């Protein structure tokens, strides 16, 4: 089933064409990786799909319906975007894991949060750990858990493992793949990591705002 349809998406800002003629069909449970040089428009594309920016031309359909017809807040919970270089909220790890509950007006389930921590090899007692004491890799893992606690339909990953060592990359990678396989989460991941690219079922290359390859 086609979940996301991008038809001739273009984005212009301040007289600059950042993206043009992006055509992409994403089926449920697809795992698509996106690569391309720095500044080619990869993050911009994810932001458009996430509903954080509005394309200046073309069409974006989610589950057959125009993006703009959805409530943007509810849409973003289904098409969840993990930003490039995330910043953590508040002071402790718990502050971050509480946020997904807060926005859904649900009580914080610490058992669920602890389980999430262990799923990415973080100790359960990290809940009260100050975010400033986390290593870069731990930080990145906590950040992604905010997107994963309530599994979305589509997960947009923006270079979430860039700059991490192999061990951290593997942990993240394993969890993402599990989400994809077990929870049917559709993945669009901007990455330069070859293992991840090999794992995915499609590779999209964006150069200077245009799609180059669609295998």
């Amino acid at each position, binding site marked *: 089933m086609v979940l996301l349809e991008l038809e001739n998406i273009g984005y212009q800002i301040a007289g600059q064409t950042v993206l043009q003629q992006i055509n992409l069909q994403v089926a449920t449970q697809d795992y698509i990786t996106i690569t391309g040089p720095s500044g080619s428009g990869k993050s911009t594309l994810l932001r458009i799909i*996430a*509903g*954080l920016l509005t394309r200046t031309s073309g069409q974006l359909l989610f589950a057959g319906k125009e993006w703009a017809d959805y409530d*943007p807040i509810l849409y*973003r919970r289904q098409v969840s975007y993990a930003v490039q270089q995330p910043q953590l*909220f508040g002071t402790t790890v718990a502050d971050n894991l509480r946020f*997904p509950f*807060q926005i859904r007006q649900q009580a914080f389930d610490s058992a669920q949060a602890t389980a999430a921590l262990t799923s990415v090899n973080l100790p359960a007692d990290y809940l009260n750990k100050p975010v400033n004491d986390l290593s870069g890799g731990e930080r990145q893992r906590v950040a992604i858990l905010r997107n994963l606690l309530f599994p979305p339909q589509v997960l947009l990953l923006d270079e979430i493992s860039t700059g991490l060592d192999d061990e951290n990359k593997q942990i993240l990678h394993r969890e993402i793949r599990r989400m994809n396989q077990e929870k049917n989460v559709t993945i669009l991941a901007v990455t330069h990591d070859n293992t991840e690219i090999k794992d995915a079922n499609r590779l999209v290359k964006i150069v200077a705002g245009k799609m180059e390859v669609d295998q």
Partner: protein
Amino acid sequence: MNLATSNTTLIFAALLVFVALYIGYREKLGMNKDILIGVVRAIIQLVVVGYLLKYVFRVNNVWLTLILILIIIFNAAYNASKRAAGIRHALPISLLAILASTGLTLVVLVFSGSIRFVPSQMIPISGMIASNSMVAIGLCYRNMNSSFRDRRQQVLERLALGADLRLASIDIVRESIRTGMAPTIDSAKTVGIVSLPGMMSGLIFAGVDPVHAIKYQILVTFMLLSATSIGSVIACYLAYQQFYNEQKQLL
């Protein structure tokens, strides 16, 4: 009353202006023109206000009093909105915030019998309330603009996770309200220790018993707390929404 200021004494006191001019000249501050303009404007504005108030107090008409209060509120709102530096709808937001904060505070003051509905009490008190509200709201706007700029990334992350606009901005809103109220709270803490504020000084100056004068200052402390909190809350809750568009995207 033991008030001794007259036109003659003022002319002698004007020597004080020359002190400022001399310093400006010696230190090459390049602002003697501004000093002179400031002095002349102060004199003209105060003379006009003096005669205007004298007339209004003598006429003692409810409608005239209300109109003047509204003019004060509008001026305060206009000045507050100038500090909004690009926040959309800043004028109507400021107007609503100052109207509500001044109005509510005045109603409580009048109904509690703290002040009487006569122009000589209503107008100066309205001016104090509206101007404090104006300053508070101006601080709110400034904080909001800088926080939305500095914490853009965090706000975007919250939106990306599916937060509604309130939750995406709540930290900034709270901090902005605090910023708006902080000076009033600080001055409430130090009143009488560090400074003898204007209202109380004026009364003591005019010969009122200090023990009686402080009661007015206590009243002023209460009303300014109310005015700045109401003004800040309304302005912040309306202003944060202006940082987003229809599609709930950060502008």
